């Protein structure tokens, strides 16, 4: 509750210059940076790209004078900025590099992790984004549409296709377990 109040205080205009504004931003950052990094990493397939775009997302967020928003809207807005930056990156000359396989950093449950990562790599960037926003972030179709710039009506069918494709690539025994 205290966190929500601090974040809400920060979201008000003229926020970033004060000490309270800094504290609010710190809490907002702590609440959102890890999920955002996970999204960027799995959508791009590259941890280094995720690091880079995470910083850029928050800088753009701070630079834009966005209207007052509640916590959920702020979170959704951050994902929208991140998605736009991802799309810019896809269009840039690093386009091909984004498709390179990602390295795994941690040894825990490595096999299961490789399954999911391998399945994700088989998907198109747009499909990864949709699956992550829907199933990990739990966003509604309208929120996904706002974050990705797609039409709200097309999200359902695109998500369905992406799910079918991902399920095919995941190991059958994992899906049945």
């Amino acid at each position, binding site marked *: 509750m205290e966190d929500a109040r601090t974040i809400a205080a920060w979201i008000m205009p003229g926020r*970033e210059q004060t000490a309270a504004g800094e504290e609010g931003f710190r809490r907002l950052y702590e609440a959102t940076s890890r999920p955002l990094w996970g999204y960027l990493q799995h959508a791009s397939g590259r941890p280094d790209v995720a690091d880079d775009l995470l910083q850029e997302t928050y800088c753009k967020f*701070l630079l834009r004078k966005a209207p007052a928003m509640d916590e959920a809207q702020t979170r959704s807005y951050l994902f929208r900025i991140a998605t736009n930056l991802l799309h810019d990156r896809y269009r840039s000359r690093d386009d091909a590099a984004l498709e390179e396989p990602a390295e795994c950093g941690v040894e825990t449950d490595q096999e299961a992790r490789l399954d999911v990562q391998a399945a994700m790599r088989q998907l198109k960037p747009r499909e990864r984004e949709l699956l992550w926003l829907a199933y990990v972030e739990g966003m509604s179709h309208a929120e996904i549409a706002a974050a990705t710039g797609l039409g709200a009506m097309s999200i359902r069918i695109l998500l369905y296709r992406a799910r079918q494709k991902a399920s095919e690539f995941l190991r059958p025994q994992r899906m049945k377990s």
Partner: protein
Amino acid sequence: MKRMSCEHETEVIRALHSGEWTEELRRHMANCEDCSQALHLAEALREEASRAEIDCNPPDPHWILQRSRRMAREIALRRMAMLLAAMRALAAVYVVAAAGWLLHGYAELQYREVASTMNGASAGFALMGAMVAAVCVVAGLFPILREGGKSLVLYPSRGKNR
């Protein structure tokens, strides 16, 4: 006809996030292949997300704030540099126009007609006014034109802010 996902899928995912499963939803889950597949995929992705968070080492938020402020300053400076460039261009146009007028228009001025409308005091006053105006204009133009060269050295990477 296009194959669409089950209409309860969103409810299933919401229940997975909140942990609040209704009996009705559980019964539906047992019989719906679509929702079951969505649930398994969502669980796999959420597990992956939890593992990925261990790898995540985000930079200090203070550093992000500093960087954004630096970027804001750079953007403001670039905007000012553009404004100054526009002023310099206008100043240059003014100098050329004034020089042209001094060389041609001023020489063709009908002094007698102008002089006939003035007495000695008003002519002196007009001359003084013209001189003051000229000094002010030159004083204003000089730093703008001179700083033009410096700002090109200070902001050579205009437009490369990323």
